[in-house]
């Protein structure tokens, strides 16, 4: 009876371990080696400590399972009574200590290398927002937001999920290969954490702090990551995609972005029709507002106020603009003044004022991009 229990134990535990060996893709079960020198060193550290643990485990559990097998009451009815043996006790204190020192040395060296974060060739400020990332290129003045691009219908199982489900964005952050890229990481609202496993970079994005991380990527490609600090409702829906490209392609991309920024500024001056504003506003709303205020404009009672039927959205245009531009102190509503273009702010306000029956109940007044520009120049902070 006792033995059969032990046999059961062996069978069951080997059943548990068996899938490790049967699984086709070992990489799907282990840490990535990554794409940089540092990430490979981190991977090596991981494997080293893993195998040390395995060896210790085999020895300790070996003695234990042997005792369980050999010293049952049936086989060894008279237990010995030995206890306390100073020699052995010193030995099993000193040996683990030595192993730890052996482990600590390479770990310390790799950590020192990671912390060597002097100025990079390209410096990018990364700002976490609920629930998206902003990238500002400090040298080139490029500035954009990166949002999850997975369709809501995929998330809610209405259509099949794509290959990069939840790991795809509308605009990846672009970096050149072979150059030292330094990230200056911070946040605008709550704490987020910027993690790209292939670079072995995980740094918390904390409001009021700037953390740094750096990488040198050799191979062009797309590298995907996630937010890894609980940041509210859509914590699981703000991925990171880094596109590493050759220098020439990077330069082209930079000039393209600058040209686009110029064209956007021109757009502000254009005369916009109500239909144009509403249709542009809808896409801005879905990307930036719907997470909290909901697609239906109903918000979530107690946390995110409804826009449908809201007095401000119905009849108070100037306060409506002010909230978008300044945010609401002490609440989750942030300032969108630097997040969205004048065109986008004007059109999203117009959209909310003319949707969900708001235009029938309130004044339905339209906001045009020039008004936002005016607001900016009137409220210029010194």
């Amino acid at each position: 009876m006792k033995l059969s229990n032990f046999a059961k134990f062996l069978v069951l535990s080997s059943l548990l371990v068996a899938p490790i060996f049967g699984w086709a893709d070992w990489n799907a079960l282990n840490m990535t080696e990554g794409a940089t020198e540092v990430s490979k060193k981190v991977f090596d550290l991981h494997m080293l400590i893993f195998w040390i643990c395995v060896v210790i485990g085999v020895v300790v559990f070996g003695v234990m399972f042997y005792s369980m097998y050999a010293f049952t009451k049936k086989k060894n009815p008279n237990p010995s009574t030995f206890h306390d043996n100073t020699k052995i006790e010193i030995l099993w204190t000193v040996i683990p200590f030595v192993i730890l020192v052996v482990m600590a040395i390479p770990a310390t060296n790799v950590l020192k290398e990671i912390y060597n974060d002097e100025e990079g060739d390209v410096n990018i400020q990364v700002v976490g927002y609920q629930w998206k990332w902003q990238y500002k290129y400090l040298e080139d003045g490029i500035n954009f937001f990166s949002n999850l691009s997975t369709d809501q219908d995929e998330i809610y199982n209405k259509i099949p999920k794509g290959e990069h489900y939840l790991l795809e964005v509308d605009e990846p952050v672009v970096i050149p290969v072979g150059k030292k890229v330094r990230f200056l990481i911070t946040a605008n609202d709550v704490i987020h954490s910027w993690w790209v496993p292939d670079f072995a970079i995980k740094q918390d994005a904390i409001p009021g702090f700037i953390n740094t991380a750096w990488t040198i990527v050799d191979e062009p490609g797309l590298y995907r990551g996630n937010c890894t600090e609980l940041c509210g409702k859509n914590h699981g829906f703000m991925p990171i995609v880094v596109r590493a490209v050759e220098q020439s392609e990077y330069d082209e991309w930079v000039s393209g972005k600058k040209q686009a920024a110029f064209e956007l500024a021109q757009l502000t001056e254009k005369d916009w029709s109500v239909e144009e504003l509403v249709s542009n506003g809808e896409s801005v709303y879905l990307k930036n507002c719907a997470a909290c205020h909901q697609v239906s404009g109903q918000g979530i009672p107690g946390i995110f106020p409804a826009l449908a039927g809201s007095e401000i959205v119905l009849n108070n245009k100037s306060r409506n603009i002010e909230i978008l531009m300044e945010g609401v102190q002490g609440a989750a509503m942030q300032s969108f003044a630097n997040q969205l273009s004048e065109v986008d702010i004007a059109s999203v306000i117009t959209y909310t004022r003319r949707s969900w029956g708001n235009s029938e109940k309130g004044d339905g007044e339209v906001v045009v991009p020039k008004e936002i520009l005016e607001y900016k120049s009137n409220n210029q902070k010194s």
Partner: protein
Amino acid sequence: MSAVIESHDHDHHHGPAKGLTRWLFTTNHKDIGTLYLWFSFLMFLVGGAMAMVIRAELFQPGMQIVQPEFYNQMLTLHGLIMIFGAVMPAFVGLANWLVPMMVGAPDMALPRMNNLSFWILPFAFFVLLSSLFMEGGAPNFGWTFYAPLSTTYAPPSVTFFIFSVHIMGASSIMGAINVIVTIMNMRAPGMTLMKMPLFVWSWLITAYLLIAVMPVLAGAVTMMLMDIHFGTSFFNAAGGGDPVLFQHVFWFFGHPEVYIMILPAFGITSHIISTFSRKPLFGYSSMVWAMASIAILSFVVWAHHMFTVGMPLAAELFFMWATMLIAVPTGVKVFNWVATMFKGSITYETPMLFAIAFVVLFTIGGFSGLMLAITPADFQYHDTYFVVAHFHYVLVPGAIFSIMAAVYYWIPKWTGNMYDERLGRLHFWLSFVSVNVTFFPQHWIGLAGMPRRYPDYALQFADWNMVSTAGAFAFGLSQILFLFIVLKTVRGGKKATSQVWEGAEGLEWTVDSPPAYHTFTTPPKVS
């Protein structure tokens, strides 16, 4: 003096009061121990139900069952309830039952405070759970409630959460004071500190940890309260405050808290392994030494939870080395248990099965802990399912298995009845297999890159999440069997002897099973 003692003499053998008031007004350590244990089991089921919601949502990629905001409430309440409602009260319940009987004392030193420290707990959890029905929902910021997500950006129910934590803290502090005073003042003549049973030692150390860190937690939530309602900016960067300060304060509480939940388990395991190996514990004094060093080290490792907040290199190195150092006393303990079994005369009753599983699986949790201590590697592990796997290994087949082992081990003493050994073993094997099916694959999905606290995930994690969910439901259902076994034992069964187990040693095994309502009214002599 003698006149006073005599006038109380005829009171010594009175039994419990009748009806509900027995439980409401009781100052008896055995009754209060029972209350704590049942309360903790109830919370275990509530927290477990929330775990089932979490695992059901994670069964497949995509959002199916709940919305992300409710998912976050579930993971927050699951953590809080399991830690403060299930594991901690269970250990306090065991301390209540066992510490007086093990040191030969008639009761806890402060019996009325004992009643108070239990009866405020249901209110704390009533307040916490009621937040589920409030506008804006329950707390949704994780059991670690990092500011400013838990202050500026929190739902209104955060205030109720803060008061609930205050009440839990008060309860724990009172419980800890009671344990310390009992152990320091009420040991039977002849029982020196170094003759105390290890469970008593483990609780003495735990109680000091509780007294040291629960006020720190109270301080953290009070600062939150001030930030939310009284215009301070402790944690608000816009007002000149420091969100990282919150994490330092929280983890200065949080890390010793982790050991609060495991030290009593070390005590329990030592008793059980020695009993069923029919052999004295290999190194009693080195066990005491190891537990004390772990407790002391727990105060200087807190920032290993914060390797990614951007601390200076010197701090990262210090906390890495200090954390690695913990492996030494932890190793000593595991070696001690193995050496105790070596050349013993072992039988495998249910408590022993749980204790052995504890040693093996807690050690696996220890290995992943050692891996997490390596700072550069932690940059990859941090806040992934690898961490989830790690702390569930030390808490479920760690702390909770030790509590179950303790219940099987001492329930014949408490009730006077033997539990059903066949059912007990069945419960063990179901729990053992399912706990591994649940949590072992989480190591893999964590290493492969799945962050924790995600309601939805990328497709490459789908297979093992499905396996994990299946395991979780099997584990959850297995605990209904545990409830059944305990109820069956309470109602009847083979009568237990005083000693119950062949190899059991200690004062609690010298009294009847079940013990009289008041034991050791005359202190026993310990040689």
